[in-house]
């Protein structure tokens, strides 16, 4: 599963966009986030900014999954951006700080999933681990976009130095790579991107994580923040009509991701579900600490792994 979390949305009829999407599928990507950039002042009323991206924008691409993402450009430290309300309409909420103060603010207390710095320009300050580390410990990741560097030599220079600085400051953790490609010609295949990441100072393993596990964690974490009970418990299947086969057997088992928390969580689940009939649920512990191993998710993600099934059975037996 390869992710590209930044493809700027233009319109459904834009031939370049649809060409880009088909080309990404050809290159081997599986999940694509369509990005809507929000700039300027956000008044409190407009905080409920409508999502212009349709739910299923390209139905003729069965192999691809689409996410909807909003990127808010931060340029005024005193403004309240109302990011929490944005997350109702979008799958991922990202911010793009423009100076050091806003970067600090984004790292420490803004409600976002992703910090996307424009690395094709020169910044008059250094990236410090003290600042960036706070974001990483909150589970927020940093995005490096490579498309600008494909086109423009000057942007390439800045990207090389900025990306190297960012990777040095974050020690290679919590970095994801995406394209921000406005044309098909600016996209590159996943393994080519990993090779580029090795050029910036990541090793093969971390480069791979930057395009597979990292984006996946961002996606799931954003989903958990939005849907779950305090970002901890999510009801995946709240009983209802029994599904055939495999699921029926699991109806009474609660799949629990962390052993130590198991019993307490199971008790809480009962309350949350509030139903007499047993429900199959997925619990998860504090999102940021889990990183890439979140069991919750949707269609392709919500099937528990073998290990989890066994664990679930054990818990059921004990209870």
């Amino acid at each position, binding site marked *: 599963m390869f992710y590209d979390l930044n493809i700027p949305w233009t319109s459904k009829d834009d031939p370049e966009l649809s060409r880009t999407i088909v*080309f990404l599928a050809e*290159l081997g990507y599986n999940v694509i986030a369509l990005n809507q950039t929000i700039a300027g002042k956000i008044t409190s009323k407009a905080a409920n900014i409508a999502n212009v991206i349709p739910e299923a924008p390209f139905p003729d691409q069965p192999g691809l999954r689409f996410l909807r993402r909003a990127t808010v450009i931060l340029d005024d430290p005193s403004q309240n951006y109302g990011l929490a309300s944005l997350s109702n309409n979008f799958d991922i909420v990202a911010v793009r700080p423009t100076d050091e103060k806003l970067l600090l603010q984004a790292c420490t207390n803004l409600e976002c999933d992703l910090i996307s710095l424009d690395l094709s320009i020169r910044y008059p300050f250094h990236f410090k681990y003290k600042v960036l580390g706070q974001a990483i410990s909150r589970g927020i990741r940093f995005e490096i976009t490579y498309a600008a560097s*494909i086109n423009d030599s000057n942007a390439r220079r800045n990207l090389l130095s900025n990306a190297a600085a960012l990777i040095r400051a974050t020690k290679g953790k919590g970095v994801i790579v995406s394209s921000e490609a406005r044309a098909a010609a600016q996209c590159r*295949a996943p393994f080519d991107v990993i*090779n580029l990441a090795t050029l910036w100072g990541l090793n093969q393993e971390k480069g791979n994580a930057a395009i597979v596990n990292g984006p996946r964690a961002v996606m799931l974490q954003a989903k958990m923040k939005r849907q779950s009970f305090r970002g901890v418990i999510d009801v995946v299947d709240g009983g209802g009509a029994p599904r055939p086969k495999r699921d029926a057997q699991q109806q009474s088992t609660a799949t629990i991701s962390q052993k130590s928390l198991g019993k307490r969580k199971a008790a809480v689940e009962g309350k949350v579900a509030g139903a007499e009939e047993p429900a199959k649920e997925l619990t998860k512990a504090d999102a940021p600490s889990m990183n890439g191993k979140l069991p919750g998710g949707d269609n392709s993600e919500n099937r528990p792994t073998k290990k989890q099934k066994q664990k679930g059975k054990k818990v059921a037996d004990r209870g």
Partner: protein
Amino acid sequence: MVRVKQRYILFNILYPSAPASSLQSMVFCRPSPTNLTRTSLAAAIRASLSHNFGDWGIGQAGSFAVKYFSPATSTGILRITRDNYRLLWATLTFMRELSGQPVVIKVARVSGTIRKAEVEAVKLAEETIRRVRREERAGSGGAAVAALFAGATSKAKAEMGQNAGDSDGEIVVEMDIVDSDGDPE
């Protein structure tokens, strides 16, 4: 005496400027223009290497060789010393156009022996043929693909020694690797 370790980079050239009207999965894998040969490809890669990595880059990775290039399938194999293959790979990634057309070069495989690269190339070619056939059979815009490949496929098939009329499997793809050491220039 320790022998020199090499890496063989198998790459595909994709053409992203396909017409948006007939967006099929195969539409980006087009045959290369005829003026793109092993020599001109090597020159273009060297120019990109020089542009991106300067004299140092040429010194490090300039001793690559284009071992094989098929314009019909837009597939090729490069040879480079093991220490510098990432540099050459990045050079390929940063390439934007070849003989006036926008291109994206996708590295399909990096291997230690040319034999494995060759096997992988044959496998990819077979997959491509199978995919075209499947789309043709499905009929979903297969005509567009067929039209696109009408000129190219006959050439490709002739070149690859592929049996055109044979519809029940058994695809034979042959490659002709020029095994001359040193640069083609």
